[in-house]
């Protein structure tokens, strides 16, 4: 059964330096507060996994938490580039960042394989692209019935997956809705999971489009209202598009970024 914890405690309990960590949320429900708590706790050498390492990973990468990134699209959606990500790849600043690069379909299926307890997934993917040249984690496999050759990718099994959701009940059952992306698969693929939620309620009123993660499939739940900002929680908040635009300026320059990090992340006190 999931334990109810504070955000600081949840991150401290679950994450170790060097861990493989997935923070998921496809544009919607991105666990920004948890990402910033990881920065505050100065975790390092993390292998960060995420389909869209957008602003949340730009922050973690710029703060020097990551050694490696497994991903499929690294940009600021609708705005442009991720400057901290670029600076790490192009200039190894603040530390070198090793990349393992996939397509969305490949990453999604790697989580599916992880959630399914299978060592690999099969898809029609990557064909005719240069992606397979740069990793051994994209291979071919023949159909044992037709002989047709398809693509195989290995399961993702993060040490910890972190996601944000709208609600949990006191038993730790988690409820999310709206665009739910790959969160269920990312949680089920992981050894341990931390879910931050907008609120903890007595009873989870059913909602159309909901995904429910039963308490016994989750390790820890922390109540963090607004924990997805500048992303959003459908029914609770709207996407702060202005922040995404502002991020382009904040992140473009190392000093501006570090000033922002100091003021908006490192100095922030969180309840233990």
């Amino acid at each position, binding site marked *: 059964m999931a334990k109810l914890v504070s955000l600081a405690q949840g991150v401290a309990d679950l994450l170790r330096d060097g861990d493989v960590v997935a923070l998921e949320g496809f544009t919607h429900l991105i666990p920004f507060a948890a990402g910033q708590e990881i920065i505050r706790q100065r975790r390092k050498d993390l292998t960060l996994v995420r389909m869209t390492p957008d602003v949340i990973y730009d922050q973690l990468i710029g703060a020097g938490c990551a050694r490696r990134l497994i991903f499929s699209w690294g940009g600021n959606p609708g705005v442009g580039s991720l400057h901290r990500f670029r600076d790490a790849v192009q200039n190894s600043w603040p530390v070198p960042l090793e990349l393992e690069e996939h397509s969305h*379909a490949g990453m999604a*299926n790697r989580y599916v394989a992880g959630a399914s307890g299978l060592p690999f997934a099969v898809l*029609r993917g990557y064909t005719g692209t240069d992606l397979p040249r740069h990793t051994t984690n994209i291979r071919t496999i023949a159909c044992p019935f037709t002989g047709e050759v398809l693509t195989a990718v290995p399961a993702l099994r993060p040490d910890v997956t972190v996601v944000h959701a709208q609600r949990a009940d006191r038993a730790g059952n988690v409820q999310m809705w709206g665009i739910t992306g790959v969160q269920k698969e990312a949680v089920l693929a992981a050894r341990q999971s931390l879910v931050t939620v907008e609120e903890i309620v007595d009873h989870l009123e059913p909602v159309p489009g909901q995904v429910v993660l039963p308490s016994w499939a989750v390790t820890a739940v922390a109540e963090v209202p607004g924990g997805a900002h500048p992303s959003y929680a459908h029914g609770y908040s709207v996407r702060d598009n202005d922040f995404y*635009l502002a991020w382009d300026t904040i992140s473009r320059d190392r000093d501006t970024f570090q000033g922002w990090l100091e003021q908006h992340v490192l100095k922030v006190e969180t309840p233990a």
Partner: protein
Amino acid sequence: MSEGWTADEMMTVAAARQLRDGTACFVGIGLPSTAANLARATHAPNLVLVYESGCLGAKPDRLPLSIGDGVLADTADAVVSVPEVFNYWLQPGRIGIGFLGAAQLDRYGNINTTVIGKNYRDPTVRLPGAGGAPEIAASCGEVIVVVRQNLRTFTDRVDFVTSAGYGSGPGHRERLGLHGRGPRVVITDLGVLEPDPDTCELTLTCLHPGVTVDRVRAATGWELAVAERLTRSPQPTEQELTVLRALESTKEGVLH
């Protein structure tokens, strides 16, 4: 008729006109999303917009900044998981049209959105990467590319193949076993290119109003093939411009 319009507006209008009503269309954010929503608001009211965030049949009344904006989920016929949108909807070829952009494009419609520079591990410019594009390019019935035309983008050889067009030419897609037919048309701010049925090479088939062939050649990093019968795009209609500008004005969080 309208007082005037920009090259980007012409490009968006030309892209929208390519979309047949009732088709399912896999839409990325930015120009493809604008064009698809313009088409839906004009000649193609039953266009089915599919976003990789899992929104099937989204009917946004404003332009989303990201592919995961709430308006897409609120107006969709169905919201499915990301694995499902790729596995059950894109992969089996249910989506008629895939809409792609490009940082680099070559004469065979191969697309690069990964790195600029010859060394992947030490790139000149690190771009966002693949996202959904490799499988959109592989599995949609056909692909429409929307991209501004200039020497940086229209390059003789892309530094990295992120999404396969016609590979190295005729027969390449078939040898790879790709189910989709590949890029049917490339819409730029200067005109329209289509693959030659025999050589698969992108060929200028249409010029936007006021554009010359020489200008297109000068913006193309290879010896451009030009169709014998070159057509000219009809100007954007007043309705197209009115709807497009109304849509643009609803775009959230635009850089001002």
